[in-house]
């Protein structure tokens, strides 16, 4: 069992405007080669910031990052500018919820993919074009030759997502970071993209870190799930453990609020309150103001993530 990605005590604080925002707080994670880790959590819980840290994408002037990130032997935080440039795309690449963020509206998809390959690798334009075509076939874009000449805005949501995945795979990365890539898609296309990612994971031995807020999606794709809340991991374990025997009150609340279990027009069960202001986190457990099991002890110190049987870990003193 080799870990392709290993994150230790990652802490990210944004210092741009007003009070500092601690978006990620002592996060530790490991991703085995060829496996899929899902980061599941609520808006603002730090999933994207964690993901972006792996590519060192935070604004240098307004962010403070500490901890250690090792990806395939590269010490991400210690790399030079050129060093991190080499890692991006070649070792780690990323896909987003909104493909338009990754795709340039003024170039055709074929131009963008061949350009990316040519920038990173010593190949001829013909070879790069052939690879682009092969990638479009791999991500199952119909009439791939024709689609290479299309502009991003000429494609529907699902097709753009495939094109973005093709672009991300252009330089044969080992780790794919996926930030809500199926969130804006309808069900028939979503399941195809999830099956595609699973196939790519198998065929290419890709490790995937997949961010989502949708437990249904997580269940379809994850090997392991890590649940984030207010910048911290509050629970992690196998898909089955998280789904069937959630131990953290937040995870339990998330599962209970699922719309699948409600009848039309019912009031949904919700977790009361809202996520904490990251500039003014409560002392101790960040979930305490919303939790129905809170005791005085919960507010004293941040509960640490304690690993139990089968790698099922939970950060709650009353779990």
């Amino acid at each position: 069992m080799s870990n392709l990605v290993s994150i230790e005590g990652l802490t990210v604080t944004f210092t741009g405007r007003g009070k500092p925002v601690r978006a990620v707080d002592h996060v530790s994670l490991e991703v085995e080669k060829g496996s899929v880790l899902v980061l599941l959590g609520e808006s603002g819980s730090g999933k994207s910031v964690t993901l972006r840290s792996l590519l060192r994408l935070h604004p240098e002037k307004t962010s403070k990052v500490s901890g250690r990130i090792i990806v395939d032997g590269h010490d991400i935080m210690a790399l030079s500018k050129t060093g991190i440039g080499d890692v991006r795309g070649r070792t780690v690449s990323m896909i987003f919820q909104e493909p338009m963020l990754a795709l340039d509206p003024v170039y055709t998809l074929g131009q963008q993919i061949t350009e990316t390959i040519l920038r990173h690798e010593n190949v001829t334009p013909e070879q790069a074009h052939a690879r682009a075509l092969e990638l479009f076939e791999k991500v199952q874009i119909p009439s791939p030759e024709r689609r290479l000449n299309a502009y991003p805005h000429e494609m529907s949501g699902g097709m753009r997502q495939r094109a973005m995945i093709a672009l991300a795979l252009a330089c044969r990365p080992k780790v794919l970071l996926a930030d809500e890539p199926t969130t804006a898609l309808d069900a028939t296309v979503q399941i195809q993209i999830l099956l595609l990612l699973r196939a790519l994971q198998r065929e290419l031995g890709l490790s995937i870190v997949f961010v989502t807020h949708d437990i249904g999606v997580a269940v379809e794709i994850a090997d392991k799930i890590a649940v984030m809340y207010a910048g911290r991991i509050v629970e992690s374990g196998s898909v089955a453990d998280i789904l069937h025997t959630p131990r953290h009150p937040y995870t339990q609340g998330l599962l209970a609020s699922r719309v699948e279990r409600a009848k039309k027009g019912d009031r949904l069960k919700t977790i009361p309150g809202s996520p904490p202001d990251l500039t003014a986190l409560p002392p101790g457990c960040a979930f305490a103001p919303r939790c129905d099991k809170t005791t005085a002890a919960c507010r004293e110190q941040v509960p640490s993530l304690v690993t139990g049987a089968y790698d099922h870990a939970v950060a709650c003193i009353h779990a």
Partner: protein
Amino acid sequence: MSTAPDTLATDPRDRGGPAQSLLSINGLVKHFPVKGSGFFGRGGVVRAVDGVSFDIRKGETLGVVGESGCGKSTTARLLMHLIKPDHGEIIFDGEKVGIDLPLSEYRRQVQMVFQDSYASLNPRLTIEDSITFGPRIHGMAETAARAKAHDLLARVGLDPSRFAGRYPHELSGGQRQRVNIARALALDPRLLILDEAVSALDKSVEAQVLNLLQDLKADFGLTYMFISHDLNVVRFMVDRVMVMYLGTVAELGEGEAVFASPSHPYTAALLASMPKMDPSERTIEAPLTGDPPNPINPPSGCRFHPRCKLAEPVCATIQPSLTASAPGTSQAACLALVPQSGHTLAARLSLPVPDIESMLMPEASA
């Protein structure tokens, strides 16, 4: 829940009473010219919306589902008059929009919350300024507009003292979408079009926003058109549901009936694509392969025929129109449901769902 709230009866803007649809759409068509090909030749247009008719009843929530590119957002944009239809009319509470009812009047009464919460907020405006923008353009005094913005922020669950002065990039996705909802409500609309409005939200926030939308609907006497790819959410939210395929309506009916026993083979496949919520029973094969065919040159006859396992030769020649196969069932555009259509299954009045599903298994040759 499906009954119109009392506020409708007292809304001074109500004209035709509860029996008159709030919105009637007749034969809506929107084709976009394709770059690089002749503007007039056949095949030179994207048939984004191609003959769509439906009503939105007062006080109801009409759901709209269908694959990427089937024309949901274009339909919404047409309803918002953000783009002009090529054909078709929009009747709002009995008045033809743009003829009996001036566009400016109509625009106040129909508001939209978009899919992309970030792009729809001006990054250089504070949250408060974004919300007051519409009312001030329509002549509301600044202090009144600000007071209203603070009310609405509180109403959508964002503490005005914490959020009013923030900029969009300082908010998470869920917070931005609440701002968008507040902004849409600032002009007191009667119809709110929600285009993937909760898609980017995590589940606990989504649950709150769905509850919020139900509350706001009752409190303000709103009518919703609810576009979403999340079929679980649609099942939960809507009174009726419209299933679109390649710019046309495939099925339209009561939400409960459609979800319990879909009439159209496409609807059945769509429902079978929902995540299984069981790691030991993961989906192995997608119920539908490929994206929808190209709307530039849609398939002849029934547009679903190249992907449909019930397709027969007749399906490539006749375009089915919406029909109810039995009283009380949904309307579906499928020849297998139309007696004497020439489809061999047409004799049967209703298709048992398991039957459809077993026949929908994807096949490479399709």
